[in-house]
């Protein structure tokens, strides 16, 4: 208790190093808290999905109904409507994996006692974005061949001197911009959201324990904001999962678009 008082003479805002939480070991291959969350979520999802889909009925029960709602959103509203009914089927497992994995991992940011958003560690969104990257590149090259794929980057009917510029821009978009933005969007949202939550929680705690006098009262709005933003994080969690697979579908859909 004395250490807390002495350390809290001056408020320390939450920052990036707070997200580095090694549990076992040190360095590049340390076992971190986010790894444990990721593995637990993956196992949990696999078990739940296997159990719910073990006996599917034409007339669904409650659990199946919820699963179907989520599956229908990914399969029909995103997969079928964006990729197109002719080609979307092989991509359903990818989109459904991405959606459930991102959604549950994001929700872990506010669910006690875990309360750590896996995706605020950039390695995880990067892993997912790399999966999407490989899938849409392989699908594109398979469909048109490498030459056709590269040719298809440039829309037809451009003046000859514009072609090299557009080609380079499109190539950079395809190879670098897309996976990077896909990664950074998810990472940034979860990172910033969690920083905000930490700020309200730590700030409220600071005012409550060390404010003294009237400042103690300020902890009440701070904690209220913490709850408000926790609720807001639920929305963000869903939205980010949705946006991620929406963009993944758009990138895949481009493979099958016959013209730019």
């Amino acid at each position, binding site marked *: 208790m004395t250490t807390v008082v002495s350390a809290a003479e001056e408020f320390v805002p939450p920052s990036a190093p707070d997200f580095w939480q090694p549990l076992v070991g040190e360095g590049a291959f340390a076992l971190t808290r986010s790894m444990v969350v990721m593995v637990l979520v993956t196992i949990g999802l696999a078990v739940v999905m296997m159990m719910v889909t073990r006996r599917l009925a034409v007339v669904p029960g409650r659990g199946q109904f919820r699963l179907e709602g989520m599956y229908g959103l990914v399969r029909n509203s995103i997969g079928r409507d964006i990729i197109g009914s002719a080609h979307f089927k092989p991509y359903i497992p990818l989109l459904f994996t991405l959606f459930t*994995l991102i959604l549950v991992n994001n929700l872990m940011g506010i669910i006690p006692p875990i309360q750590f958003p896996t995706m605020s560690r950039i390695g995880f969104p990067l*892993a997912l974005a790399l999966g999407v990257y490989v899938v849409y590149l392989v699908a594109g090259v398979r469909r048109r061949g490498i030459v056709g794929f590269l040719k298809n980057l440039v829309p037809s009917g451009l003046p000859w001197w514009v072609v090299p510029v557009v080609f380079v821009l499109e190539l950079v978009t395809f190879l670098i911009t897309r996976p990077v933005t896909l990664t950074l969007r998810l990472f940034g949202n979860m990172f910033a959201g969690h920083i905000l939550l930490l700020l309200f929680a730590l700030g409220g705690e600071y005012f409550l324990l060390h404010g003294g006098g009237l400042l103690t009262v300020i902890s009440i709005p701070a904690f209220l904001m913490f709850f408000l933003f926790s609720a807001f994080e639920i929305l963000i969690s869903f939205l980010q999962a949705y946006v991620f697979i929406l963009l993944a579908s758009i990138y895949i859909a481009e493979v099958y678009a016959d013209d730019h």
Partner: protein
Amino acid sequence: MAIDNAAGVLAAAESGEGGFWESTYPVIPHPGELIVGIISFAALYFIYKKYVVPRLETMLAERQKTIEGGIERAEAMQAEAKAALEQYRAQLAEARNEAAQIRDQARAEGQQILEEMRAQAREESERIVARGAEQIAASRQQVINELRGSIGALAVDLAGRVVGESLADDARRTGTVDRFLDELDGMSGSGAVAVPEGTR
């Protein structure tokens, strides 16, 4: 407590104890986490691809089939109902038509029967009148004949009594009487039988 942890971590970072992974930019991916991310993602993807999605797709296809079957059945039933309604309507129209026809026919028949009855009654009455007339004529003739027979005898009797001579067997007598009667007839029937002066 979170604040303990955060404060401790921060203190460690400031004193350079946390090492590279703590103090580096948060956009530098941690290799261990990247690998765990890829493995988790791949494992879950494999499970979904192999089990979860095929099961869901099978169920959806089955449901689609069931629904389509239901729709087909409903459509067939609807068509059947429609056909039955059409048939019923046609029958109703036919029945109405028939009823109207029967009504018309009945009316015509009634009219005809009335006409026939009327004619029959007229005929009957005429017949009755004719027979009455005939009967009257016959009675009259009978009376005349009777009178003709008895009046002769009465007249002769009377005349014989008056004259005092019996004319009964006389052959002439008949002729006289007949002639007298004929004259009587010829006087165009005034009810009273006038006795001619000669026979008196």
